[in-house]
């Protein structure tokens, strides 16, 4: 599904990623771990097509991100649901509008949006907050909204970049358990984190990065740095 072939990224003479190669298959739950600055976020941005490699290639379902035209890139991004540490919500839109936006981008009709969005928000525990703005929600609620937004279009892949970074342990486990459920439903989940406890409890594939290089890739890995 996703392939990194000998990918190197250099920014201002700093090597961010150094000859990184791996493959993620459909339905996998893969965690990228490493210290801050190890290259996790750059890797996530490349999977979203927001960064281009200096050399090497990133393939999504066989299509090279670097060679895709803007329309193809948008289509690929729509197949990926992103969850971020800073939530990346639309601050001037309500909870309902934040989730609806993703469906509007896909060109879904209003009836479908009106029916689907409240269901997703209800499932995520935000059914009572449809008309609230993001800054009126707690950190945990904002992250759940980000999860709802990532799920609403039934994407092929969920990418979570440090999704628990700003959350207390209770909310952090809630988000991780949602990601596990998503994976159990057959979706591919990619998680970038430096939370040792979460990784060790997951018992899933772990790719460890250090200074832009992959130093470990284990099927049932643990957090070892």
């Amino acid at each position, binding site marked *: 599904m996703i392939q990194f072939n000998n990918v190197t990224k250099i920014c201002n003479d700093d090597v961010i990623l150094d000859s990184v190669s791996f493959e993620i298959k459909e339905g996998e739950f893969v965690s990228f771990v490493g210290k801050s600055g190890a290259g996790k976020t750059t890797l996530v941005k490349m999977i*979203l097509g*927001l960064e281009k490699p200096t050399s090497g290639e990133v393939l999504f379902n066989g299509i090279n991100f670097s060679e895709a035209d*803007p*329309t193809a890139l*948008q*289509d*690929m*991004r*729509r197949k990926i649901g*992103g969850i971020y540490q800073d939530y*990346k*919500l*639309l*601050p*001037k*839109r309500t909870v309902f*509008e934040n989730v609806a*936006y*993703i469906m*509007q*981008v*896909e*060109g879904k*009709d*209003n009836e479908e949006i009106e029916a689907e969005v409240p269901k997703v928000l209800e499932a995520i525990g935000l059914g009572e907050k449809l008309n609230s703005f993001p800054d009126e929600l707690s950190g945990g609620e904002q992250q759940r909204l980000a999860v709802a*937004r990532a799920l609403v279009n039934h994407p092929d892949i969920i990418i979570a970049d440090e999704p628990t970074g700003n959350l207390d342990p209770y909310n952090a486990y809630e988000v991780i358990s949602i990601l596990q459920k998503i994976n159990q439903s057959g979706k591919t989940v990619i998680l970038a984190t430096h939370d040792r406890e979460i990784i060790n409890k997951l018992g899933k594939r772990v790719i460890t990065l250090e200074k832009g290089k992959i130093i470990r890739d284990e099927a049932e890995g643990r957090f070892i740095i």
Partner: protein
Amino acid sequence: MLTNFKRIAKFAMDDFSRNKGISVAAVFVLTITIMLVTGLFFFQVAGNYLTSQIQSKIDITAYFNSDAQESDILNAKDEIAKISGVKNIEYVSQDQALATFNQLHKGNSVLSQALQQVGDNPFLPALNITTNGDPAQYQTIANVLQTSDYSKLVSKVDFSQKKDIIEKVYSMISSINLVGIILGIILIIVAILVVYNTVKLAIENSSEEISTMHAVGADSWFIRGPFVIQGIIYGLIAFAICFVVTAISAFLVSSKLAAILPGFSASGYFLTNWWIFVLIQLVFGMGVGAISALIVVKKHLDK
């Protein structure tokens, strides 16, 4: 397509009403700059009127000898009329000149006695010529009158006596026009930059939002559209305010301006040319607002 447009328009309206502070600031700056552009246009109109008034007052008179044949003078008139820039040319015979003089000084016994003492009609036949005010035209006319056909007939041309003054006035008018154009261009560029920076500040506030929209796969028009429509809304509101202010100002200053520029009516000009004001204010307001938004969002998307 239509659904997308409706959504983009709704986003724009929501953003406009939810960012009241930024919206008010952007409309205020646009209003001020549109007023500046309108003011420049109005001064240009008043300046042109003043220039044409001064130029219409400058004319040239060619006096012919008293024994010159009327047919020769009329030949000269026809030839001068062919020169480009000659707006009007009028033949005044000796008798007409005398009649006009008598009419003007009716009841002035001293002048009447003086005329009786002279005996004959002392006035010379003449051609009164009005041009577009360019001194070069006067020189061309003088050259025609100096050709062998007419030089013997012409007694004097008053242009040569007023030449320096005419050239000074013309050069002054040309300089004022040039300075006006340069100043106008500079002020319009400043106005565009001010609007651009205001729209830029308003959009910078949403830079995180733009990158999020980009990341979730929104196409560029779905991202740009609301900002461009917001720019148009800023322009429309600013236009409405400016148009009302312009109309009220034109009527308020009309009498005062007429005292400085006799015959010029600001309110009359506004009533007959209101559509020009609509065009300038709408095109400037909406155009600069929308184009600024387009450029700023494009820069964000290209990052």
